[in-house]
């Protein structure tokens, strides 16, 4: 028996598969579609349920808040035209008139009240409520005027209201969608949600009646691509027009190719290395300083981020409102000898033993490895303890018997970083270093309750200097945000809070 045909069949099948692979990719349609790759996909469109900046960027296209930060983190009017403070507890917002929701309803003061009522409703269980706990009540003055009263004078209110969690909702739309509002958002923003394929992509189409004018592109397609290399390949192979969260390892290479437009800017987030200052040896300021001098942050960021990060000059990123630009460029330079001397002075000439906690996320683990190496140089012997992310958060919240690393984004306002992380009232939750310093707490209180921006700025300047002297953490770095676009993309800008406004972006041929 001869089976030549069978062999032929096998090869024909294999050939067909091969041929199929070579079939050309069809051309795109004539619509102006801006395709954006982000690191993560969408988690839903109910702003009051969202906790991540990637979804935040999507929300920014669909909703407007009363105010909105610009690319320099200055808060600009958005749905509120103007505001004033009749007294330290009261904020009166004048609303823009003639603004339409996507469902055709007009935006009024009632919508503002509804939005806040909903977020304060325990049934909503909004994680965002934590940013507005200072608000006492929200009242409708007239159709286009809203009065917000705070429990105590609360200067950072604008930075809270400018967050993506506080996109203005329309009661009718929320009620109509019920439990499925998450998938059927109605906002006032420049784009309307067209489709959402979970895990893959979101398509937004332009809202012709947007109050700031018609968007310059017809559609936005957001794709969540968690893998760095894939995101880059998609950009380079023409699959997307904007690659956000561009991986640092590819930045120089793509830059030198010259085919794309490169954007880089430090973000508002900072990464710090913490320890429990309430226990020995971290309760000794000299030890804390020694720990700062002993680490070579530049080598660390060079290795982890290919230099795409800046060493922090204090507790805040330079992009945060309130940052003191007069701080020294490198307050605690890498200096092993000085570190050793400080340790000896503090009574630890031979160093000590401690633990470095890390989560299973490989970043914290790598940083811990680096620190282990740095500290070994000054005689501090560190054991790296790895915990599950949830457990890591819980343990550090309760206080650990060693050191840990954490990143913090905050609100873009000095208060949003300093109070959370270092005010003693937050010990047991976000103050993971257990720093309890009444003097610093007082400065935080003053900063929070002083509505005058200049005076506030001065308070935070003092606070940062004080912080840098007391030093309850090891200063590390702020990562640079990297975005790369094709030359066709115009009007793009990096927002330090990673919540991008794409209304001004256009696609030129």
């Amino acid at each position, binding site marked *: 028996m001869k089976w030549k045909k069978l062999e032929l069949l096998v090869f024909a099948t294999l050939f067909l598969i091969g041929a199929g692979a070579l079939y050309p990719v069809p051309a795109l349609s004539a619509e102006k579609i801006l395709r954006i790759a982000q690191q993560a996909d969408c988690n839903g469109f109910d702003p009051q349920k969202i906790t991540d900046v990637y979804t935040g960027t999507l929300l920014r296209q669909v909703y407007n808040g009363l105010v909105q930060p610009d690319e320099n983190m200055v808060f600009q009017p958005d749905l509120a035209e103007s505001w004033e403070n009749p007294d330290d507890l009261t904020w009166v917002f004048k609303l823009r008139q003639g603004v339409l929701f996507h469902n055709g309803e007009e935006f009024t003061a009632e919508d503002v009240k509804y939005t806040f009522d909903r977020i304060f409703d325990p049934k909503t269980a909004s994680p965002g409520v934590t940013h507005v706990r200072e608000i006492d009540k929200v009242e409708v003055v007239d159709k286009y005027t809203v009065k917000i009263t705070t429990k105590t004078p609360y200067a950072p209110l604008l930075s809270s209201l400018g967050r993506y969690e506080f996109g203005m909702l329309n009661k009718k739309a929320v009620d109509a969608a019920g439990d499925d509002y998450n998938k059927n958002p109605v906002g006032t923003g420049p784009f309307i949600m067209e489709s959402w394929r979970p895990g893959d992509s979101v398509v937004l189409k332009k809202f012709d009646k947007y109050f700031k004018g018609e968007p310059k592109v017809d559609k936005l397609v957001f794709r969540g691509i968690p893998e760095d290399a894939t995101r880059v390949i998609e950009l380079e192979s023409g699959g997307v027009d904007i690659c956000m969260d561009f991986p640092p*390892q*590819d930045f120089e*290479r793509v830059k030198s190719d010259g085919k794309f437009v490169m954007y880089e800017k430090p973000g508002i987030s900072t990464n710090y290395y913490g320890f429990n200052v309430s226990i020995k040896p971290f309760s000794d300021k000299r030890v804390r300083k020694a720990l700062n001098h002993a680490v070579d942050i530049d080598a660390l960021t060079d*290795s982890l981020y290919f230099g795409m990060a800046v060493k922090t000059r204090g507790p805040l990123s330079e992009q945060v409102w309130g940052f003191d630009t007069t701080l020294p460029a490198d307050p605690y330079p890498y200096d092993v000898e000085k570190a050793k001397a400080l340790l000896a002075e503090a009574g630890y000439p031979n160093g000590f033993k401690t633990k470095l906690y890390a989560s*299973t996320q*490989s970043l914290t683990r*790598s940083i811990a*490895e680096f620190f282990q190496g740095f500290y070994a140089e000054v005689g501090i012997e560190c054991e790296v303890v790895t915990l599950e992310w949830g457990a890591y958060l819980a343990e550090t919240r309760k206080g650990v018997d060693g050191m840990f690393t954490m990143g913090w984004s905050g609100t873009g306002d000095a208060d949003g970083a300093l109070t959370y992380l270092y005010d003693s009232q937050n010990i047991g939750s976000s103050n993971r270093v257990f720093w309890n310093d009444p003097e610093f707490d007082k400065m935080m209180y003053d900063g929070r309750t002083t509505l005058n921006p200049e005076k506030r700025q001065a308070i935070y300047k003092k606070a940062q200097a004080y912080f840098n002297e007391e030093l309850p953490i090891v200063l590390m770095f702020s990562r640079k945000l990297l975005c790369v676009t094709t030359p066709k993309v115009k009007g793009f800008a990096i927002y330090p809070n990673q919540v991008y406004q794409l209304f001004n972006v256009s696609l030129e041929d």
Partner: protein
Amino acid sequence: MPGTATTLKRDKRQSKIGEIWRRLKINKGAVAGLAVILFLSAMAIFAPYLAPYEPNKMNSGPRLASPSMKHPLGTDSFGRDQLSRVIYGARISLYVGFIAVGIGAVIGGFIGAVVGYYGGRVDNILMRIMDVLLAVPQIILAIAIVGALGANLVNLMIAVGVSQIPRYARIVRASALSVRGQEFVEAARAIGASDLRIILENILPNCMAPIIVQSTLGVASAILSAAALSFLGLGIQPPTPEWGSMLSLGRQYMRNAPHLTFYPGLVIAIVVLALNIFGDGLRDALDPKLRQ
């Protein structure tokens, strides 16, 4: 006279092993597979002597360097020597593979022997539990276990091992069922041997052949599963040099340094291939009936 009996037994066993080896030797592929496995095992054992650099030492060379004389497999994003990491990686992979299979084979084998031997209700209940384990795809079960318990070496071995239990349970059970009724078991029982002894002395030796074959193939699949889990970030965590997690790290640099993705995967493929070829040959050697 008992001395003679043991000697006889030993002789018989030795000649059996010799016979298996003789049959195995003819299969060139199997011998090559065995050679590769032995080579990799040696590499794992003598890693500290073989590796040119410390596997976790950062900046052993320039970062993301392509393969060169100094770094035959290049360096990764931390400037760690990739060859050294691959060599040390053999330790982890083989370790996980063998321990996981050990867990699976011992627990599964024991369950299989007990339920096969006693039968009845015990059999029914345990086999239904095995059905439940089998109803969840193996790797997904392992993912769930690691995802819940946390990603580290021990949990990884547990996860992969547990997900392998049913296959051994089934093999041993089938063999126990067939052996149970045979005369020599009846005879052993008649002279008052305990159940445990019967299981250990009569039932287990009778299913050693399929267990050995299944274990060899099982090590291959365990190594593959473990690498896959580590690749997904649910296994061995960096900086421990493990092939799967090296691949996962290398993947981020695929555009600049494809060698970081290429080599770890290649060694996984080689190990698994070698184990599979050897397992295949072993099956043929142990069970000549299947040989054509």
